[in-house]
């Protein structure tokens, strides 16, 4: 049991990010805890030699989806930046901090407008830095499908970002 608790510690942050992206922050913790409990019951089916992370993330995404279905929630997921501290080692200028935060907020807002499918593949490859093979495993698809799915997701994200910039210019 102690070994499994250590596995939970090691992977819970990644799982919480995935659950937040699929079902929102309100439901994420519950979905992740349920996922780890179910994963424990299925451990004997886990292929030894495989990576645990894509496997638990797949279970987590399924649990998060179940939570949405059970609450009949159909509204868009709201994603936010954490209360701000700038990234990087050197202390940036205040203006740079503001600009960076605005860009980040724009990016999460655009991400939240994408479909769950697009959000997930982007999350796995960029936010969680999984390899293509790990992403394929977490999504339950072939590696080739990851490439094409990611390319389309990024294109749609770019469209969302460009259209939000256009709306900002119009508002001026």
């Amino acid at each position, binding site marked *: 049991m102690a070994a499994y608790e250590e596995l939970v510690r090691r992977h819970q942050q990644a799982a919480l990010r995935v659950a937040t992206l699929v079902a929102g922050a309100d439901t994420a913790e519950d979905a992740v805890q349920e996922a780890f409990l179910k994963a424990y019951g299925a451990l004997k089916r886990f292929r030894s030699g495989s990576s645990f992370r894509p496997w638990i993330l797949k279970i987590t995404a399924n649990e998060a989806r179940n939570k949405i279905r059970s609450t009949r929630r159909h509204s868009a997921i709201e994603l936010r930046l954490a209360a701000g501290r700038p990234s990087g080692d050197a202390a940036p200028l205040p203006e740079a901090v503001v600009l960076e935060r605005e860009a980040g907020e724009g*990016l999460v807002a655009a991400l939240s407008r994408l479909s769950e499918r697009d959000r997930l593949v982007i999350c796995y490859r960029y*936010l969680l830095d999984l390899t293509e093979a790990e992403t394929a495993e977490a999504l339950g698809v072939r590696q080739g499908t990851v490439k094409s799915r990611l390319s389309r997701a990024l294109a749609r994200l770019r469209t969302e970002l460009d259209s939000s910039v256009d709306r900002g210019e119009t508002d001026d």
Partner: protein
Amino acid sequence: MTDRRAMGDLERALRGLGEQMAHPQAPGMAEAVGRELRTGSGRTAPRRVTWPRRRLLAVVVAGLLLLAGTAEAARLVIGAIAIDVLPGPPPSTVPETGPDLGSRVTMGAARTAVGFQVLVPQGMGEPDGVFVDGGRVTLVWRSGAELPRIAGTPWGLVIVELRGDAVIAVKEMTEGTAIDSVHVGSASGFFIAGPTDLLLAGGRRLSVPGDVVLWQRGAVTLRSESLLSKADALRLAASIS
């Protein structure tokens, strides 16, 4: 700004977003998960009782556990077979017959296919059929003077053997089914009298008309089905080696 540069900037921004995106921190989640798994506090249904291979976990009291109209679902696990106790009547299903038992093979081929020594009861002679389906081997004996025929089948005795702790078959029990905690030789097991269904991996559901003895011997889970009396069924099961 070219498209490629713009896409490169976007990818860099996404990589930086991982640490910045708000999500619950959930301190103490590992401990909470550990606690739920240790205490089985009911977050995941049904309630589960497991029998470790080497030690008896005395959660089910010895004696007759009659399940009639119970509103509570429960699960007992012995090796690779779980017994789900469900409220309500079972769905109507197909009784086990030859084609559903798997591919007919020789005893030697069965040993090779499942990777464990296939056990047989003493005094019954060679089985009339040996079938393999995945990690499961099924031995059958035709009905006769000393083996009453199991309804819907030509068999008087059906023995199923599976290896491993992962549950790969589930017996669903409902109203009117009785389950006894028993000993088969030195091993602990269950005697189940009454209608049950067997739910196999892949979703196939089979009706089990006979009474069943379930127990483990080492890494192998055994299930013996017949219409013998309980005493005779347990004597036969204990002879399997």
